[in-house]
């Protein structure tokens, strides 16, 4: 019995240790400069993460703008038409496989189909990679949630003479919306922290990107760059960046779980 509780303590300990170290090493470096300045050349003190925060916002925003509607459409397709459509089985299988692939391979894929033909790393390709990761997350959870909506709601809508698309969007989707919204936020929190695919797509940039077709920094990527550098000044910034990233992601998670999303279990696969 004591063994079991020890195991449980060991599972929770790393989270507390990581949060503690983040606060201790990173909190003192978070000031106005951190949010307003870009990477300084090696040797100069100071500098910040403004370009990285903006890059993450742009890439995640673009990925969500493409991935959420696409994912929702797939989810609706599978939940509402899945029984009769021939494509449903293969699509469900494809989404499952996409969800299980290591994220670095998504980077390799996008590198091959976008970066090589364009002959340069770009913010756009990074956003596409994040979109590929977000798509199955949104599609699979929204399918599950839509399926939970009782059949009689649909029948009631149809009986009122509403067209089917209207029933789906304004009755079924609307009833499931709190959960779907939570799933979308969790998916966004997840891609906001993705690093591996961005190494091969948006590549990183010491300053603000000038356009969608330019290489771009992002918060996780910049943390990586700072962390593996040999400079203490950059390590300081890496901790600060990690603190900001973790607290943003955890806040998103905590809010969605404690409010709307708490009643549906998150699938670990």
């Amino acid at each position, binding site marked *: *019995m004591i063994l*079991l*509780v*020890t*195991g*449980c303590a*060991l*599972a*929770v300990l*790393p989270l507390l*240790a*990581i949060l503690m*170290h*983040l606060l201790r090493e990173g909190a003192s470096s978070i000031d106005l400069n951190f949010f307003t300045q870009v990477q300084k050349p090696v040797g100069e003190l100071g500098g910040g993460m403004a370009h990285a925060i903006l890059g993450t916002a742009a890439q995640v925003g673009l990925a969500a703008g493409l991935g959420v509607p*696409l994912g929702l*459409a797939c989810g609706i*397709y*599978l939940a509402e*038409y899945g029984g009769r*459509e021939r*494509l449903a089985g*293969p*699509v469900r299988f*494809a*989404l*499952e*496989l996409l969800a299980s*692939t*290591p*994220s*670095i*391979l*998504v980077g*390799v894929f996008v*590198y*091959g189909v976008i970066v090589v033909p364009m002959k340069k790393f770009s913010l756009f390709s990074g956003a596409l990679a994040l979109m*590929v990761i977000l*798509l*199955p997350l949104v599609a699979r959870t929204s399918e599950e949630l839509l399926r939970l909506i009782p059949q009689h709601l649909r029948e009631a809508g149809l009986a009122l003479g509403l*067209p*089917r*698309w209207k029933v789906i969007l304004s009755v079924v989707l609307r009833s499931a919306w709190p959960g779907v919204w939570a799933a979308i936020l969790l998916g966004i929190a997840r891609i906001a922290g*993705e*690093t*591996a695919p961005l*190494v*091969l797509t948006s590549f990183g940039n010491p300053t603000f990107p000038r356009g969608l077709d330019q290489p771009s920094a992002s918060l*996780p990527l910049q*943390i*990586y760059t700072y*962390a593996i550098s040999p400079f203490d000044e950059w390590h300081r910034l890496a901790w600060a960046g*990690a603190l900001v990233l*973790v607290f943003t*992601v*955890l806040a998103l*998670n*905590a809010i969605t*779980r404690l409010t709307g999303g708490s009643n549906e279990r998150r699938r*670990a*696969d």
Partner: protein
Amino acid sequence: MKADRIFIQILRAAAGVSLLILAAFFIQMFWSSLPALRAAGMSFFSGTDWDPNQDVFGAGAFIYGTLVSSLLALLIAVPISVATALCLTEIFPAKIAGVISFLVEMLAAIPSVVFGLWGVFVLSPLLRSSVQPFLSERFSWIPLFSGPPLGIGMMSAGVILAIMITPTLTALAREVFLSIPTLQREAAQALGATRWETIWIAVLKNAKSGLWGAIILGWGRALGETMAVTMVIGNRPQISASLFAPAQTLAAVLANEYAEATSDLHLSALSALGFTLLLVSTIIHLGAKFWIRRGRES
């Protein structure tokens, strides 16, 4: 009803796009690895030398590093996760269990690069200064614990992976335990079993096949983890008996070399490593799913 027809066409298009993405994914990965596979043949998988400057490409060391680091992670994470899941379902009152499972879920939400950062500056120094010297003093006759304690290396990677897959494993194990009918537990208790015996006889024995599925899914997760591993494993493609030595994995080398590949063949060889990883993780995922389904039916 015309609007309905347009609506379903839009949905079909979206579904088609996701099919297309997956198909393009596999085709692209296969296509880009062809040149390297053609050049090296089967020796690509058996060779252990990796020297892009000499156009020598062998995946052996990466496969070895991937297997050893992920198995080490399982070795650490499985007992911890099973214990945690048992605490959550069998022992703790609902309130405490709620808090613990919330914390474990939060651990799952931390981005990989942050684990890497913590691994580089906290975990590795800790292993180097206390854990590894202790192991090498007592157990240096075991090859696993030979050599200088470097901190950065296979052991760091295994431990950080273990931390990262613990939430996945815990959640899966918990689901398996929850699916076991209460009747089983009550039957064991009615026969006079103690609490521990109940857990052993009624819960763990019945959960066996489900747990195997969970472990395999967790393994698949560990195989593909990239950023945290590349930051703490030392990035040296070598096969060393010692867990203290640096190593390299399939996923980590992609993050490390892909964007800076020196030649087309080098790029293709890296793609072939990626394709290998893709096949392995797909097979593992499908295998685990099959296993879980079979467990549920029996």
